[in-house]
C-alpha cells in the first residue's frame, strides 16, 4: 500500500480527498491503480508517450525525484506526491492554465518551473503604441503575470496601421482602456496595471520600481533618456527597441553592462531626426522589433538563451537583413560609468533642448 498526496487540481477526482491509498510496486503500476480507482487521474499526469508530463514534480517520501521514470520502484508504505507546479507557496496550475500554456510546459527549457516564473514576473511596457502593442500582446499571451503599461494617449486613426493593440472601435478611447480590454481577451491570467500618465522625473522611479523588467516602447528622446537613467538608478534590466522608416534596433541594457547613454551620450538637436509622423514608418516594422523585445524579455525572465546584452541588433526590413554591433559600458558614462555624475533624475526636456510646450513629458 502506497499513500498518495493528491494535488489540489486533482481533488475533484478523489472526492475532495487530499490523501488516498493505492497499490503499485512502480510509479507506472501506481498510476494505473490510481486511474482504476479515480478515473482521469493518470491522464492528468501522464503524456501521450507514456512519460510523466514535464511540469509534474514527483516526491517520494518527501524527497524530490529528478528525472523520474515511470518505472521508478516503490516500496510498501512509501508516500508519493505528484506536484504539478513549483513549490515556494505557489498554487498549482489550474486545468485551464495547463491547457493554455501546454506548448510552454512541454518545452524542456520552460516547463512548469519556467511558466511559474513567467506568471510571477512583473514587466512594465513604456508605451502602448507601435512597439508596446506587439510586446504587450505576446507577453500577455506568454502568461507574464503582471503587465504595467505607461501611456496617456488616445487612439487615433493614424495609429492603426501599426499599433495592433487597438482597433477601429477604439478610436478616441484612451490607449490604456483599449489595451486593458484587448489583453484581458488575450489572457485573463494577466493583471494589467494601467499608468495613465506621462512619465516624469517626479514619478518614474516610483512607477518603474514596482517592476522587474522594463520594455521601452517610447517614441521620443526625453523619455528614452529618462527611462534609461531610472533603470540604471534602480538597477532594472531595460529591453530597448527603436524604429525608423524601414530600419529597427533592439538591445538589452543589463545593470552593469552599459546603458542607452553609453550608446548615445547625447540626443540629436530638436529637428535633426524626423519622427515617424514626419518621416513615415513601415507599419509592420515595430511589430518585428516589438516581438523581438518580447522574446528578449521572456528569455530574461526564464534565464535561457543568450540575451542581446552587449549587442545592438540592427534590422533592415528592405534587405531583410539582421546585423549586430557591439555595445560596451562606457567607463566615463555619467550615469552608469565608474564615477557617475548623474545620481538622480534630471530635466530631460532641457537635456534634449526641446522648448517646454513641445515636450511630451512634463
Amino acid at each position, binding site marked *: 500500500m502506497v499513500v498518495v498526496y493528491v494535488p489540489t487540481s486533482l481533488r475533484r477526482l478523489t472526492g475532495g480527498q487530499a490523501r488516498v491509498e493505492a497499490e503499485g510496486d512502480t510509479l507506472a503500476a501506481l498510476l494505473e491503480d490510481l486511474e482504476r480507482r479515480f478515473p482521469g487521474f493518470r491522464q492528468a499526469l501522464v503524456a501521450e508517450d507514456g512519460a510523466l508530463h514535464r511540469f509534474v514534480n514527483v516526491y517520494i517520501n518527501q524527497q524530490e525525484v529528478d528525472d523520474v521514470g515511470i518505472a521508478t520502484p516503490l516500496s510498501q508504505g512509501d508516500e508519493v506526491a505528484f506536484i504539478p507546479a513549483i513549490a515556494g507557496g505557489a498554487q498549482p496550475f489550474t486545468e485551464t492554465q495547463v491547457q493554455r500554456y501546454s506548448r510552454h510546459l512541454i518545452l524542456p527549457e520552460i516547463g512548469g518551473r519556467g511558466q511559474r516564473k513567467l506568471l510571477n514576473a512583473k514587466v512594465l511596457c513604456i508605451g502602448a503604441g507601435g512597439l508596446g502593442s506587439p510586446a504587450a500582446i505576446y507577453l500577455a499571451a506568454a502568461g507574464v503575470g503582471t503587465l504595467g503599461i505607461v501611456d496617456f494617449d488616445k487612439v487615433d486613426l493614424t495609429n492603426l496601421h501599426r499599433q495592433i493593440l487597438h482597433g477601429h472601435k477604439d478610436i478616441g478611447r484612451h490607449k490604456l482602456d483599449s489595451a486593458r480590454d484587448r489583453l484581458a481577451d488575450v489572457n485573463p491570467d494577466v493583471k494589467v496595471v494601467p499608468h495613465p500618465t506621462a512619465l516624469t522625473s517626479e514619478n518614474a522611479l516610483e512607477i518603474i520600481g514596482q517592476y522587474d523588467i522594463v520594455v521601452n516602447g517610447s517614441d521620443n528622446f526625453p523619455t528614452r533618456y529618462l527611462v534609461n537613467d531610472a533603470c540604471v538608478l534602480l538597477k532594472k534590466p531595460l529591453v530597448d527597441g527603436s524604429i525608423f522608416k524601414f530600419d529597427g534596433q533592439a538591445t538589452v541594457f543589463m545593470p552593469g553592462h552599459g546603458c542607452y547613454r553609453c550608446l548615445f551620450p547625447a540626443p540629436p538637436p530638436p529637428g535633426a531626426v524626423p519622427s515617424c509622423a514626419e518621416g513615415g514608418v513601415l507599419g509592420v516594422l515595430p511589430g518585428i522589433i516589438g516581438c523581438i523585445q518580447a522574446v528578449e524579455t521572456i528569455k530574461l525572465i526564464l534565464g535561457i538563451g543568450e540575451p542581446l546584452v552587449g549587442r545592438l541588433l540592427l534590422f533592415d526590413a528592405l534587405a531583410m537583413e539582421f546585423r549586430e554591433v557591439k555595445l560596451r559600458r562606457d567607463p566615463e558614462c555619467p550615469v552608469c560609468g565608474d564615477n557617475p555624475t548623474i545620481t538622480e533624475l534630471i530635466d530631460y526636456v532641457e537635456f534634449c533642448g526641446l522648448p517646454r510646450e*513641445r515636450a511630451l513629458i512634463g
Partner: protein
Amino acid sequence: MPVQVRIPPMLREATGGARTVEGHGSTVGAVLLDIDRQHPGFRERLFSEDGELRRFVNVYVNDEDIRYLAQLDTPVRDGDTVSILPAVAGGGRHV
C-alpha cells in the same frame, strides 16, 4: 582600399538613395571624406562645424564602435564594413 559604407536611412538623400557606398581610404576619417567627395554635402550631415562627429551619430568598423578604437583614425582594411548609426526614437509627433 575599398570598404563598404552602410548609409542609414536618414542620410540616404545625401547619397542619392544609396544604402551602401564603396569608399576608399586607410582610416575611417579618410573613407568618410571619400564618400563626401562622391556625394558633396554628405560630410556636413555627419560632422559639426568643429570637425567632430556629431554626438548622436555612431560609427562602427565591422561591429566595433570607433569611440573604443582610434576614433576617426581607426584603420580600415579591404572588405571592412563601416556602419553609420544615428540615434532614432520613432514617434508620432515630436522628437
